[in-house]
């Protein structure tokens, strides 16, 4: 038993760190560090650099342009990535539809779509959730009716993250309305420029435009843009839901947030001394820090099992529950740390390039918005209640 990294892994970490240090654009890292909004252009610019290095399709097999990294290497990459303030890696193409196409797609689909993911030519979004479905993903109401070489798709998708930037959407649609629940669903690739596709923003409680509704009105989708067999789309969906979720704990981001919390607490004053020296607040930080240490070890245990060929199942649900609880606890303390300066809400201050005078300490501006934004962590990707149902069933046999 050994909880340290091997010499090779440490060398790999150094290599990743050096690359991030050299190649991550400073302006983008600054936005992430300061909690400012990262633009579409920022994402594309950075992801192109990653792709050029061959480090964009982290999970893909080498033959398709992936890294072929081991789970531990991927974990090291995630940690360094977060620690370098690299921006959220938009997963819908490279981490979601890509692996589905690799696993279930035709040769033609692979030839056509995989390179365009790597080249950033396509920006993908996800058409899973529907209004009223919530965590019950299989209750797909969107209909796809065969009409010659096309499906005619009608329905509505929602919570489509960064759909405003996307030109492609992967989507679940019901091709057989008589089959029940998970049967009769097909997995379709839709060009967002097709007539009948309308994207409408959903503004979230923090004032951000991250998610959208997508309306599909008589959208004609070529049959060759169906992945897998007709009616077997749930297989793709399920594959995606369980695919490579060892990063789900978000340990790298949490460590980053914790370091930021300590930094903020060192700069804030409470009762004439740094807030960081206030015994009660210091204890609150320590309590979440030890929990995070435990989560990191749990995460490493799961990754190590994956490294040895195990397939993490409902363990991912545990990582998700605990990981989101801890990250939410940290964002809560961050908001609390700045006291009254958690109140000012200056959306313009969250845009990159804004050079106005901050209200209060410059680190204060995004903290409340982030706190509210991060409430989503325990809701999306299967709410924590759903995750607990999964654990109860799969691990506990209840």
């Amino acid at each position: 038993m050994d909880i340290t990294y091997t010499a090779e892994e440490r060398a790999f970490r150094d290599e990743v760190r050096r690359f991030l240090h050299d190649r991550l654009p400073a302006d983008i890292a600054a936005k992430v560090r300061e909690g400012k909004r990262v633009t579409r252009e920022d994402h594309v610019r950075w992801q192109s650099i990653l792709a050029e290095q061959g480090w964009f399709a982290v999970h893909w097999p080498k033959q398709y342009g992936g890294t072929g990294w081991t789970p531990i290497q991927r974990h090291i990459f995630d940690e360094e990535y977060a620690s370098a303030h690299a921006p959220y890696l938009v997963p819908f193409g490279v981490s979601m539809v890509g692996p589905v196409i690799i696993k279930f797609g035709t040769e033609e689909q692979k030839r056509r779509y995989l390179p365009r993911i790597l080249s950033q030519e396509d920006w993908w979004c996800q058409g899973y959730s529907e209004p009223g479905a919530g965590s019950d993903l299989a209750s797909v109401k969107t209909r796809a009716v065969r009409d010659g070489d096309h499906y005619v798709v009608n329905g509505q998708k929602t919570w489509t993250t960064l759909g405003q930037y996307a030109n492609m959407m992967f989507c679940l649609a019901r091709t057989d309305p008589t089959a029940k629940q998970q049967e009769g669903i097909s997995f379709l690739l839709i060009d967002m420029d097709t007539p009948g596709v309308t994207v409408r923003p959903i503004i979230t409680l923090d004032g951000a435009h991250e998610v959208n509704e997508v309306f599909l009105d008589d959208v004609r989708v070529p049959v060759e843009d169906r992945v897998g067999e007709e009616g077997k789309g749930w297989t793709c969906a399920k594959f995606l839901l369980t695919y490579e979720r060892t990063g789900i704990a978000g340990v790298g981001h949490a460590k980053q947030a914790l370091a930021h919390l300590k930094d903020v607490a060192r700069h804030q004053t409470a009762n004439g001394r740094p807030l960081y020296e206030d015994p009660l607040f210091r204890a609150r930080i320590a309590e979440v820090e030890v929990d995070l240490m435990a989560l990191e070890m749990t995460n490493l245990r799961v990754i190590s099992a994956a490294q040895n060929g195990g397939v993490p199942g409902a363990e991912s649900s545990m990582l998700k529950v605990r990981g989101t609880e801890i990250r939410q606890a940290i964002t809560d303390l961050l908001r609390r740390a700045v006291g009254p300066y958690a109140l000012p809400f200056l959306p313009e201050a969250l845009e990159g390039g804004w050079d106005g005078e901050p209200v209060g300490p410059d680190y204060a501006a995004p903290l409340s918005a982030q706190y509210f934004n991060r409430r989503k962590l325990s809701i999306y990707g299967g709410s924590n209640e759903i995750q607990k149902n999964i654990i109860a069933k799969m691990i506990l046999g209840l």
Partner: protein
Amino acid sequence: MDFSLNDEQRMLDETVSRVIREEYGFEQRRGFAGEPDGFSAANWSLFAELGLLAIPFAEENGGFGGGGVELMIVQRAFGRGLVLEPYLASVVLGGGLVEQLGSPAQRERLLSPLLAGKSRLALAWAEPEGRYDHLAVATRAERDSDGYRLSGLKAVVLHGDSADRLLVTARTAGGPTGRAGLSVFLVDSAQPGVGVRGYATIDGLRAAEIRLDDVRVGADALLGPEGGAADALETVLTLGCAALCAEAVGVMEAACELTLDYLKTRQQFGAPIGRFQALQHRMVDMRIALEQAQSMAIFAACSLGLPGAERDRRIAAAKVVIGNSGRFVAEQAIQLHGGMGMTDEAMVSHLAKRLVMIDHHLGDVDHHLGRFVALSD
């Protein structure tokens, strides 16, 4: 021991509740928020007409002589509607301090237009480095020939950008955190040397950073005894805390109601989600938290007349319970609403934001826990 309202209080409750119900729908509120001051000028006039602005003042000052309970009634109803108007800032804190400290002439001059809805006050008590400590005042007032010159920075002044008159705490003597030497001055917002930078707060209100750059005021700008304003300031901040507690209860009521509705109507896996026991028990915990908060709002409202230390100890306890229960109700209301709870479109997200952020007004849980401890021993 009597937890019922008397006839006048019941009437007040009915009046305010009706106004909120009929005039303060969530969509109307969006319109109010879009007005220049971030709230509705018409509503402010309406509140004045209805006498709501006069509630907490003594009859000799043109008020109705309302106490903690009347304030609780108003604020709780305001909480249910997420009222944007600066009742807390202008009436409770601003007017409250004038009533506490002002000479008869000052009271006459300041309170009459306030109660008529013609003038609005804001209380600039906090400072950038002071966190929630009202005694951490670095702003200085130097005696000048026939008055004072004020210099300093005041932080997160609630509705400081729409008030025409500011009440500013400043040191006329003493060290940077003492009780002695704390004075209150009246400053005109439009006066030379006063820099007001207004902004929105994340809970939907407005606040301002206020810079005082050698601002000259006359001797009659001093409210109350020079250097002796700490007691009055504490009385008024305590009143403000009690008002926030009552408002939080109103917000929690609305949040619990919306969430319960959602649990009963939202279908998932073929049943209303309120059939799931884990969610039922969560909703029960929210409801219990609301009851505990409600109890503490009453406790606070009924403790305002006690001697300083015991009053402050009780108010601190109330603010702690409100802060904890408010955050719990807010987070769970969002969680139980799922994605919908995350949207700007849904009222529940606004209720949640106000609930969480009430903890950042006039001292948070940790601040008041510390006060409670200090005042208990």
